[in-house]
């Protein structure tokens, strides 16, 4: 009904257009308001960030209003930085891979558990995991820092109580133990989203198919990997892409840890490094260049992944 109305109205407003032309123009006309809003809110800031990245843009430029264009110098400086290749990128990429795998695997496990529970226990359990999700990243980080604190932390206390440790250890000074704690923190904070999303998909898997498979003698693992996983391909795609983007950009969970704000150079990741190198130094152009590079990197990852998923589906 409504569609008919719009159609007639459109036909009236565009009397001279042929039917075929109208068919190509119409969707764009309908999309126009949304596109206009997106352009103002997203596209324009992106363009500005890109323009800043081509300038030496600092406090002095802000106050005087003078622009100093330096072309691709910011990009050249970033890519020539040895710290980026030896510390920052390995930390960022390695951490992102581990935490995406960890979050998705653990979240899926919890979703399967939730799906097998009765209504009452499912409500109780999902409320509990929602609490982990609802906790702000800052609060969560401080809780983990407190747990692993060298002098008053629960973790050291337990280890020493069990006789596994003679003297307190500072877990924040070593690169590996530092990131192990960040990993725990990020997985703990990220898995509820995965669990809830996958659970929604799981509940949509037709019961008949599972029953039929069981009759054919498929075990629980076989049923999971041969029936459920293919059905949930789109859900996993969304969950993995979003987790990748989030885990690449981890900032607060590292910055707020003891030594994570830059005084322990071996644990710098892309987020903290760019913050310290650009905004800490009032070099907004440099920071913008890093943001542009990060956006391109994430776009590339997403594109490759989406293509892989689509290709698989066509097969």
């Amino acid at each position, binding site marked *: 009904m409504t569609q008919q109305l719009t159609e007639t109205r459109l036909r009236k407003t565009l009397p001279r257009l042929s039917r075929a032309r109208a068919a190509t123009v119409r969707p764009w006309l309908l999309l126009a308001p949304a596109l206009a809003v997106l352009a103002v809110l997203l596209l324009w800031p992106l363009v500005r960030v890109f323009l800043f990245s081509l300038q030496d843009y600092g406090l002095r430029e802000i106050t005087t209003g003078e622009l100093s264009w330096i072309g691709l110098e910011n990009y050249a400086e970033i890519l020539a930085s040895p710290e980026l290749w030896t510390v920052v990128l390995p930390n960022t990429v390695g951490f992102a891979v581990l935490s995406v795998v960890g979050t998705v695997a653990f979240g899926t496990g919890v979703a399967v558990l939730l799906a097998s529970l009765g209504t009452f226990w499912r409500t109780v359990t999902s409320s509990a995991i929602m609490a982990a999700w609802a906790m702000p990243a800052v609060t969560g980080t401080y809780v983990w820092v407190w747990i692993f604190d060298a002098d008053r932390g629960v973790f050291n206390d337990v280890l020493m109580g069990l006789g596994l440790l003679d003297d*307190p250890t500072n877990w924040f*000074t070593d690169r590996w133990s530092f990131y192990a704690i960040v990993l725990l923190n990020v997985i703990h904070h990220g898995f509820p989203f995965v669990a809830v999303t996958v659970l929604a998909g799981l509940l949509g898997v037709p019961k008949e198919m599972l029953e039929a498979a069981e009759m054919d003698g498929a075990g629980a693992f076989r049923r999971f990997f041969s029936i459920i996983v293919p059905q949930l391909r789109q859900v996993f795609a969304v969950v993995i892409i979003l987790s990748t983007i989030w885990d690449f950009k981890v900032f607060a969970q590292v910055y707020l840890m003891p030594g994570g704000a830059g005084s322990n150079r071996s644990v710098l990741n892309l987020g903290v490094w760019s913050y310290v190198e650009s905004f800490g130094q009032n070099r907004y152009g440099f920071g913008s260049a890093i943001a542009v590079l990060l956006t391109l990197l994430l776009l590339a990852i997403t594109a490759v992944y989406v293509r892989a998923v689509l290709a698989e589906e066509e097969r």
Partner: protein
Amino acid sequence: MTRAMRRPIAAATGALLLAATTAACGGGGDGGDSEGDGTLDVWIMQGTNPDADGFFADVSTAFEEETGATLNVEFVEWGDAHDRFVTSIAGGTTPDVAETGTTWTPEFADAGALASLDEHVEGAGIGDDLVEGLVEAGTYDEQLYGMPWYAGVRSLVYNTEMFEKAGVEPPTTWEELEEAAAGLKEEYPDKIAVAVPGDAEFTVYPWVWGAGGEVATLEGDTWTSGLDSPESQEGLEFWTGLATEGGYSSTGATTWRETDVLDAFAAGDVGMAVMGSWTPGAIVDANADMEGKFAAVPIPGQDGGIAPSVLGGSHLSMFETAEDKDLAFTFIEMMTTGEFAQQWSEQSGYFPGQVSLLDETLESTDPLVAPFARQFVEGGASVPAAPTYGNVQAKLTTSTMMQSILSGDATVAEASKAAAEEMTSVLNGSE
């Protein structure tokens, strides 16, 4: 990350747009179109004075009586302040007068946001009565941009109860300090004899200076960091050695900030530590049992005397956007000299920036005031007054050095060399 990263950009963009619109409106300034006598917009940092509201109510009344103008005070959090200054500088929406941390003043002056105070100070005839360390920190390019307001200083604070039980005396040389630490460790093996924090740059410099070293010096236009000179290394060797060789600190302290030192000291777990003159109140607030159980001494020099310690505090700065600069200075003078300056110092526990007021404080015999006052006057120093020093702080150059030494990743020689190289290059603005 995006949050932290994009916000300043978005803010800067927004501020630029704002700048464009206000410029288009004909430069009415931020005060709007109030009448001739107008309003003075002031930013003050939050948390320095517990009764700031009452204090500024009195100041407003007095200010209105004297000038007929209204005072509009806005309180700003220390944590947000730097970002807010930068964005307001970008948008031309700075207040008329603001409290600026001593290390920020040269930075904002370099950006062209601050108005020079020399003429006004000369006119008022108060130039000779200002505390030297604060004038030094507020001077950029041989002009005064920050009016000394208040400051604190760090000294050696110790737990008197632990000292008595261990039978040790407050130290006056480095040797005595080490002996005291050893005595404390024997009596209290599970406590921290002396806290050597890894992420607290201002607790490090006294040992560099005390051994005769320099943090950084200016020659012509070029800064050179002296953190890796033999003298500096000797000082660093002593201070970090207390932790790495003596075992008088704790592994946890490798990543401690000054707030962590305060927490541990207030819990009664620390024998001695470098702490600020503003901390005694906070220690008692955190743990009422500590009342009367701690005292302070100036930080000892290597072979006696007093090791210099950074005067940390605030200036009052006038922004270029202030329409009525004489009115702005009237307020600055009112706040930083005489009755109100003294009241502020009494209420906040900081030292005033005017020498004649300080003399009264010096006569105090309070064990938690007198030693700090001595340190303030006889052993006060400033970090390098370079507009780029804030960048060094943002890079945590000194903390990086301390942490790598304390965690055993690097020797004093290696770490101080790397730190000096980084500091020199950042100070000179060439990365």
